[in-house]
């Protein structure tokens, strides 16, 4: 598997990250190297010993929370870091639905 520059640009656009041409070429080479290494591991291990994807390194299981209400933040606290607000609302540039 190899990573083309085109792919890097696409993923950067999805993640809203602005990359310079130099960065695109650098990251393509680096990611290509990482994925190449994974390919090599797969070849070495062979199909039989394929390891299932690890969702999580922790072995903790089922940490639940009882359905109980805990105090929320005060509106002022919730809005304290908002770049823009009006009343108790966060204010954002107008979003056009259609």
């Amino acid at each position, binding site marked *: 598997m190899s990573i083309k520059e085109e792919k890097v640009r696409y993923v950067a656009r999805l993640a809203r990250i602005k990359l310079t041409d130099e960065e695109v070429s650098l990251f393509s080479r680096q990611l290509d190297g990482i994925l190449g290494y994974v390919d090599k591991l797969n070849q070495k291990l062979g199909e039989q010993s394929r390891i299932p994807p690890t969702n999580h390194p922790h072995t903790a299981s089922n940490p639940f929370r009882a359905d*109980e209400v805990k105090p929320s933040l005060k509106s002022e606290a919730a809005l304290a870091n908002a770049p823009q607000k009006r009343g108790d609302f966060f204010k954002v540039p107008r979003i056009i639905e259609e």
Partner: protein
Amino acid sequence: MAYEPVIGLEVHVQLKTVSKMFCGCATGFGGAPNSHTCPVCLGFPGALPVLNQRALTGSIRVAVAVGCKISDKITFHRKNYFYPDLPKDYQISQYDEPLSEHGHLKIKISGGEKTIRIKRVHMEEDAGKLIHEEGGDSSFVDFNRSGMPLLEIVSEPDINSPEEAYRYLTDLKLLLRYLDVSDCDMEKGSLRCDANISIRKKGETGLGTKAEVKNMNSFKAVKSALEFEFERQVKRLETGERIVQETRLWDPDREITVSMRSKEEAHDYRYFPEPDLVPFMLQNDLIEMERKNLPELPGARKARFASAFGLPEYDAEVLTQEKETADYFEECLGFYDKPKIISNWLMGDVSGYLNAKNLSVRNSKLRPQGLAGLLKEVDSGKISGKMAKDIIIEMLDTGEDAGVIISEKGLAQISDSGELDKVSEEVIAENRKTAEDFLKGKDNALMFLVGQVMKRTKGKANPAVVNRILRDKLTKKQGEEDA
């Protein structure tokens, strides 16, 4: 060429919990904007989600009720996209290891039942709410809804008419309300539905290009939108045009669907495992407990009402449309053992009153024991059925016992023959001519005399008793005269 629609529905319901899915913020409606928020549901860096156990058990209950296979390992994924109502820039949802898959729901269609397969039932969190300023250049965000627990129920494309879609939704809602996992109130947004629809020539089995239809705010709107969309797609194919895969919005005012401006690129959510939540290993006993605790489901209850109580199918269906009504009916039966009579009253006068006042039977003041008491008074002849119709309104208004209302208002029917005897004598004496008419064979004449007695007793006389007394007196008189 005849076409048929092929429809799949995605239903989101808000689970009935007191706190959100991954944090302790309250789920109740009506708080000031952003007053039910915390670092978790606002997506502050470093805040960690912890799963609400009741959201999980409620989800399992639904999965069990629709016969889904429940996965023993449950993982959550991040669905990544950018929108101002999504504070973390991803939604915690489920992807390739959902809670459950491969279930089904039986729906009623004309002439029988149809099985709609259910592809999957999975959990996810809700986004916040955006409010748009009319004509302004800003939008406003309220994150009170952010992180509310949702259950997504996805059907296979087994639905072949807008009518069937309507039925599916009605039956699914009924089931969910029986399971007590959601209010399923579309107006409040606790149930939402999107539809995928394509068309094909009748008899074919392949799938055509589908359109996704959104923005329907009632079951009726879903039906109308699907009807419109079916026509639109048929017209396109018949005029040699292609169907484009797209999302369309239902416009309830114009009653049409409108294409959403197509995005530059197809959705690519880059799902990946949510690293903040470890996988859940579902123990069998948790699933078995939900299975064991399943209430009697609507279809089974309807069948039982018909067979055990001898109710007509129509009554059984109406009474089981709401779990609450069905429970109420059964409680009434505990005090009064005539199912059909209770059914008549509940479906007739009681439901008429409740509909007019927009109340449910539990919110009314009429108790099952009270209704039973009233019906016993009718059976004993103390009051007439007609009187009972007035009394029940009073009972619904005030919650008073029938006996109390009857004596307070002096409503008791006069069945005492001593008193009726006297009045009957008077009436016969004052209506000689009519009395003779009766004796000559005019049956209507007796009805007139009964009417006169009723009038004198202000409607309180028991008509059957009056009828008997008059008949006796008149024939006796005739006997005396003949002798």
